[in-house]
């Protein structure tokens, strides 16, 4: 029982560490901003989630059990898509010209560039940057 539990907790720790390392390695290695966005989100959910599972299992098996690591897991699972979406919007906003984007399906402009009166300033600023080659989507 104890040996199996040790193997289980060690496997969880190693899996979490490997996923964290792979996420950061992908962050350095991949060459496009959207691809770079892809890698660390795995570290955020699988890597840290697995380490927190290991901590919880360790506490339940050898200490007086506590499940408050679930708070961090739930918080990361809720917030990771939000921050990933915002960083993707930043990548779109910085890398594309407004004129190069295809027309949006329903609205007059894409939400990333819809900033009220600031839209004029930011669109002219992105023109001054000379546009870019990255295609949206």
């Amino acid at each position, binding site marked *: 029982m104890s040996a199996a539990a*040790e*193997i289980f*907790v*060690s*496997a969880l*720790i*190693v899996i*979490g*560490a*490997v996923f*964290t*390392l792979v*996420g*950061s*390695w992908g*962050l*350095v290695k991949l060459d496009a*901003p959207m691809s*770079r*966005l892809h890698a*660390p989100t795995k*570290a*955020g959910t699988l*890597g*840290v989630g697995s*380490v*927190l599972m*290991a*901590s919880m299992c*360790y*506490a339940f098996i050898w*200490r007086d059990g*506590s499940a*408050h*690591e679930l*708070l*961090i897991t739930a*918080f*990361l699972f809720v*917030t990771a898509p*939000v*921050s990933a979406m*915002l*960083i993707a*919007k*930043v*990548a779109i*906003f*910085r*890398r594309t010209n407004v004129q190069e984007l295809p027309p949006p399906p329903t609205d007059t402009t894409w939400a*990333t560039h819809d*900033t009220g009166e*600031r839209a004029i300033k*930011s669109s002219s600023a992105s023109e001054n940057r000379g546009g870019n080659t990255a295609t949206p989507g």
Partner: protein
Amino acid sequence: MITYALYFAFTAVGLSLLLAMWRLLIGPDVGDRVLALDTLAINAVALIVLYGIYAQTQTYFEAALLIAMLGFVSTVAYARFVLRRDVIE
């Protein structure tokens, strides 16, 4: 056995912190730097939780939770600042 797994995990997470720091330094655009900061915060959470297992104490849980929350809030603030040149409208 858990000790050796923890040593491996410390090495791996420390290495990933260095890799994220490298992307933070060389990041060609501000979005990459924001992403690197977010990754640094998440890796710091993993490192603190691992140290909590290693030290056999629950003391470091609050620090991990606080860093997770502050990392998210700072990521959102940076991204909003880049998008709108303003954080609170």
